[in-house]
């Protein structure tokens, strides 16, 4: 073993770096400066803002719960909007999602259904709420209809995708027995998509709960109107109370959604929920927010 170790040929850099990350970094930096200039964002504004922030947060605390009746009424209305919008949205989205599935339906049926879902998805719920406030007047009904549209867009899209991903073997087997169309759906298609359906239905309930606390800003009912009014009257301590109430409501909603998922997807019992702290199998849904 006396042969000398051969020296490596000299190299400047054995791992040359790619040039494009640096170019991208420079481009991003240039864009940030340009956009800040366009938006009139400057350090002075941030500084004066931060001085305001101290004052603002000082007035936010302590939260003021003296008008709790108004708060509770708004929260209840938000909850009603979320429940009814989810129900209506799911009821409308299921047939639409089924009609949009290209593996079960002919093209002349699936395209119109998909078009409706795309339109329902592309407008922000608040903008839809503005239109419904004009159509049916101020109040909870406008909020319900706006969030129904949003739910149709979201659930319709995901339901279509879920159905398009099913295995057709079961469907064929049920068809081979001579089952009519609705039995094929009931025994061949729906059992395959049921757990995913539970996943996005609970997610949509959550999402509607969040949005129902907001549509009130444009007059469509719920706690949002109270919040906006409190902001405009600079009742910041009441604003803080409303925010705390909204966050608690949303967290309760999330707990409920997790429990439903644990029961239907993880086959948990009620006792399991308390034992594992509403755990069960976690399934993630990275589709929308």
């Amino acid at each position, binding site marked *: 073993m006396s042969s000398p170790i051969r020296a490596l040929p000299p190299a400047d850099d054995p791992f040359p770096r790619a040039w494009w990350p640096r170019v991208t970094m420079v481009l*991003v930096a240039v*864009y*940030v400066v340009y*956009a800040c200039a*366009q*938006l*009139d*964002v400057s350090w002075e*504004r*941030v500084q004066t*803002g931060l001085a*305001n*922030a101290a004052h*603002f947060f000082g007035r936010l605390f302590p939260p003021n719960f003296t008008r709790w009746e108004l708060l509770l009424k708004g929260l*209840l*209305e938000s*909850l*009603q909007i979320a*429940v*009814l919008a989810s*129900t209506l949205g799911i009821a409308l989205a299921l047939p639409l999602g089924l009609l949009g599935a290209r593996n079960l339906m002919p093209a002349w049926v699936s395209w119109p259904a998909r078009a409706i879902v795309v339109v329902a998805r*592309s*407008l*922000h719920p*608040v*903008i839809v709420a*503005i*239109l419904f406030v004009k*159509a*049916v*007047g101020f*109040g909870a*009904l406008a909020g*319900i209809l706006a969030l129904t549209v949003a739910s149709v867009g979201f659930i319709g899209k995901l339901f279509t995708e879920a159905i398009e991903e099913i295995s057709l073997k079961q469907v064929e087997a049920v068809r081979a027995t001579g089952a009519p169309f609705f039995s094929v759906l009931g025994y061949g298609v729906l059992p395959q998509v049921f757990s995913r359906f539970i996943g996005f239905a609970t997610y949509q309930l959550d999402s509607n709960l969040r949005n129902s606390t*907001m549509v009130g*800003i444009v007059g469509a009912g719920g706690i*949002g109107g109270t*919040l*906006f009014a409190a*902001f405009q009257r600079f009742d*910041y301590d009441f604003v803080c109370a409303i*925010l705390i109430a*909204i*966050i608690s409501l*949303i*967290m309760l909603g999330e707990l*409920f959604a997790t*429990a*439903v998922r644990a*029961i*239907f997807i993880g*086959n*948990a*019992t009620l*006792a399991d*929920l308390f034992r594992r702290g509403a755990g069960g199998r976690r399934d*993630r849904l*990275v589709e*929308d*927010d």
Partner: protein
Amino acid sequence: MSAASLAGIDREWRRFTPAQRVARFAVYFVIVAAIVAAAQTIEIIPEFLADAPEQVADLLSRMWPVDWGDYADDVHGALVETLHIASLGTLLALVMAVPVGILAAHNLVRSTPLNLFAKLILVSSRSVNSLVWALLFVGIFGPGALAGTLAIAFRSIGFVGKLVGEALEEAQPGPIEALTATGAPWRSILLYGYWPQVKPAFWSIALFRWDINVRESAVLGLVGAGGIGMALDAALNLFQWPKVALILIAILAIVIVAEVVVTQIRKRMI
């Protein structure tokens, strides 16, 4: 096995145990009760519902013909401002969310209090709607695009941080152990061990959030936080319906363009 010992066993096959069936029934019961209670107590004014078709027809007739002439004057600038708010807000969110995401990943930061603290930040960021964030920042910084950008950024921290944290937790320990064995400092471990593993997830999260932010930044102006929503609010308050129609079409167009761009980039990347 005698017949007597089998007698106690339920011969009929059931998919779920009685306890599971009770749990399912409880969920159905809660849902039905909630729907019935909500439907009975909600305040709906029947007169408003009755003249809804008339109102919609009125709305559409006022919106038509769409006022295309206004586009160059004040809609285009507001639209570009909306895009700037969405992009700057997303960049700022990425910068702020990555440290929080790292803190939330329990395989990287082995301290439960720090993990929980990071999770608390993420949950509160997501629980507050972007319009409410915008209201807060308008209160602090005054009306304008700065408030909108910060609202978008703070709302996005929760989303980006949560997904980055989850991506980090799913990273394979092999490369990390190899790097640790060489005595690499933590910065190198992060940069050469974790980053290559989460890079695809990171860029797809960033693009996805940008797409959402374009939608959201279009409405922030309703509470005074800049962008095309401010033009929409002004047009609504002045009952300039043809202009409202134009702005709605502009928003729809920009949202669809953003979605197409993101889908195309994702297709190229994957």
